[in-house]
């Protein structure tokens, strides 16, 4: 499923409790880091993996601090994202 802005992504995630969230830090209405903090308040890392993607490579530390499992700087190869996702889900 897909969310169109920060607020919607938080609502969707808390409603469906997905195994994986791919989150861009650059979002309308609410910042990605805020979204991540709100999700992590309800969903522990064992339940939901969060991959943060951002065009801003310096955001990595803030992403991990807020509870991201992985950080992927934009632009990235789709295979790269796929490898990370596979790796995560096989661990679970």
């Amino acid at each position, binding site marked *: 499923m897909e969310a169109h802005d920060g607020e919607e992504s938080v609502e969707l995630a808390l409603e469906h409790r997905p195994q994986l969230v791919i989150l861009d830090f650059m*979002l309308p209405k609410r910042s990605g880091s805020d979204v991540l903090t709100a999700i992590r308040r309800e969903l522990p890392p064992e339940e939901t993996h969060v991959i943060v993607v951002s065009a801003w490579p310096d955001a990595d530390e803030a992403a991990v601090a807020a509870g991201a499992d992985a950080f992927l700087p934009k632009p990235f190869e789709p295979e790269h994202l796929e490898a990370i996702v596979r790796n995560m889900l096989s661990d679970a």
Partner: protein
Amino acid sequence: MRIGSRSPSLSARMIAASVVLALLVALIFVVLIDAMAALEDSKQREAHSQDVVVETLAVQKLVVDLETGVRGLVITGDERFLQPWVMAREALPARLAALETLSADNPKQQRRARALASEINGYIKDYTIPVVNLARDAPAAARSEVATEEGRARTREIGDRIKSFLNEERALAAASAASADRQSDRAKNLAIAGLAACAALIVLFGVYLARWIARPVRDVASGASRVAGGDFSTRLKEGGPGEIGELTVAFNRMAEELERNRSELESQNEKLRESERRKSDLVRIVSHELRTPLASVLGFTSVLLTRDVGPDEQRRYLEIINAQGRRLSTLVNDFLDADRLEEGQLELSRRVIDLGIVIAEQVQLFEGQSAKHKLDAFLPVKELRVDGDPNRLAQVIGNLLSNAIKYSPDGGTVHVMAEQVDSIVRVSVRDEGIGIPEELQEGVFAKFFRGDADASGIPGSGLGLTIARSVVEAHGGRMNFESARGKGSMFWLELPVAAADE
């Protein structure tokens, strides 16, 4: 007993040991409590560092929000993307102030926090606000490379500052944790050493108790049971710490006292036995000595009563009975005298007499008694003045004469001599009889001494010489004898001459 250098008492030693132990335990506790406080302190510092780190990360997140908001607006031209930037601008001042306050404990970190705050404020004012305005007025110009490059450089600068701030804070936390570790290690070592010392002290104390208290007490106990078993010669090695030393000394005193008491009791017992023996001797002698004359008396009286005898014979029998009766009377008197002597009650009725006359009378009395014996008296013409009891002194002389005759069974001459030498009257009676063997001479004056007399069938009570010597000594004189077996004896006595004016 040691006086002056007395060792400290046991209770003092016990108290001293307990105090040392208590001090040691207290020291261990102080060290442990100190270490615990240090650990607590370091934990607090760590928690504080954690707070600082959390706050810093929150600041970092807000900076990311600023950047992503601005960039979102620039790229999309959509005002909704700017929302995070608006919210971060509102939240940042409070967060930065909180960070500055939190890092107040470390001036260096506080300076860094201030620099970080001014850098972020500069970034907001000098870069994000112009870019936002530009994006609203001329979106194309805002998307130019120059604008984004400057933003990237500025956020990188902020990111570096945040990283170094975080690193410093983590280093501080690690240092404090390491110091806490060191302190706790030191405390652990100290506590282990202290506990080992405690254990060693307790073991030492135990050894001391066993060696210096339990063992001496056991010695005293076994000594006491030996004494209880009757071995009063038991003695303990005196000494030992404090009360133990006193105990051994007191024990030895008690044993000595008991031993002395027992030996006193034994000697008293011995005396009692001796007197018992003498009594039975007395009974034996009395019955033996009385039986012989009594048998004569009874025998001759029954002859006189049952048979007709002529007047001459009658007279002879009566003389015998009379003589035996007198012998009985003498014996009884002797026994009474001996008894009085024993009780120290010999009474003398003294006056100045001429001892020569007393001797002459006795010699006359004994002269006719035996045909076999000749009495040869050598007396001075001058009177021998003596202050004495004539009857008692006559008894003494008579005893000596009687002995001289009795112990010369084969007859012979009895020499009686009296003389005054200076202020002393000396009387001697010498016979030529059996004499007294050397081994028996020592006991001659003892009560009931009979020498070989019993075996030789010589009658007597064994009291005569005892009484005689006591009488002489009661007059202030002395009496002794010289004798050799088979050569006869010579008994002599010496009395002081009576004072001239009487």
